[in-house]
């Protein structure tokens, strides 16, 4: 198996799982050294060929695997030889960190610019305008909507943003 050190990172495991799903995880979690065919993988991992192919194409779409096609001289069939490229995982995760940073910034602005009201029964949050339209009563259950502070959220967002910016070298 290749990329063992990388695969020890629980975040990398989560990331791959998120991409390929539980059925594709045996494929994603055990990248072989060198080239491999989808059939070999299916047999080795005791999986349906379709599940193996689905996982491989997801990895391909995320720059984590490539293939080359070879025609079998006897049968005339095309064989796909796959290579895993997990050396691209760190760059992909960096991009995810950048996307997360942008989302946190946008969300912080939204949280700061709005007042929120909560139905404590249904745990639904409303913006001020919405709450006013409903006469400060929950449209689901009719109980009164209570003003809700979001300082905790803004503070947590701030902290994580700062950590991400330091890590990504954005000052």
């Amino acid at each position, binding site marked *: 198996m290749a990329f063992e050190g990388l695969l020890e*990172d629980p*975040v*990398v495991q*989560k*990331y791959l799982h*998120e*991409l390929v799903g539980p059925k594709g995880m045996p494929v994603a979690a055990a990248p072989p050294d060198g080239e491999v065919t989808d059939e070999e993988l299916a047999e080795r991992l005791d999986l349906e060929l379709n599940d193996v192919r689905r996982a491989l194409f997801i990895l391909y779409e995320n720059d984590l695997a490539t293939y080359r096609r070879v025609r079998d001289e006897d049968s005339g069939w095309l064989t796909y030889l796959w290579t895993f490229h997990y050396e691209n995982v*760190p*760059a992909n*995760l*960096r991009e*995810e*960190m950048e*996307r*997360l940073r*942008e*989302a*946190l910034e*946008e*969300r912080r602005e*939204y949280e700061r610019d709005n007042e929120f009201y909560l139905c404590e029964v249904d745990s639904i949050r409303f913006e001020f305008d919405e709450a006013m339209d409903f006469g400060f009563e929950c449209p689901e259950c009719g109980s009164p909507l209570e003003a809700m502070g979001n300082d*905790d*959220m803004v*503070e*947590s*967002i701030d*902290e*994580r943003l700062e*950590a*991400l910016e330091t*890590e*990504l*070298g*954005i*000052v």
Partner: protein
Amino acid sequence: MSAEAEDLSEDEARALELVREQGKIYQSEFWKALDVSSRKGSRIAKKLEEKGYVEREDAVHAGNTTYLITPIIKDEELDFSLLMAGDMLSPFVGEEEVDARGDAFSQWIMNLVYEDPVIPEEEAGAPPEE
């Protein structure tokens, strides 16, 4: 980024930490902050550049020709756990669009809030420090 590279001398490691903390720094400030001679500072900066940890570009600062030093952050050294809130991965992984107001992100942020609750010292029963 926490893992320090083994190919750095003590001075170089200290210098790299400075550059990373500052985000960018002029070489004319760099050696002063490190409390070394300008010649030594220049040597350290050059080494860091050669080893791929920083970039240097020509700059003019306070009337002097110098370099602006900026860190190069290697992808594999990043702390990927910043994508996690509790045991939840960033909800944007595998998604085309980023929905900053979506429910999945709300849940991620709430995980963040509860992950590290701020307990006032009195409530936590810790004696106040004087």
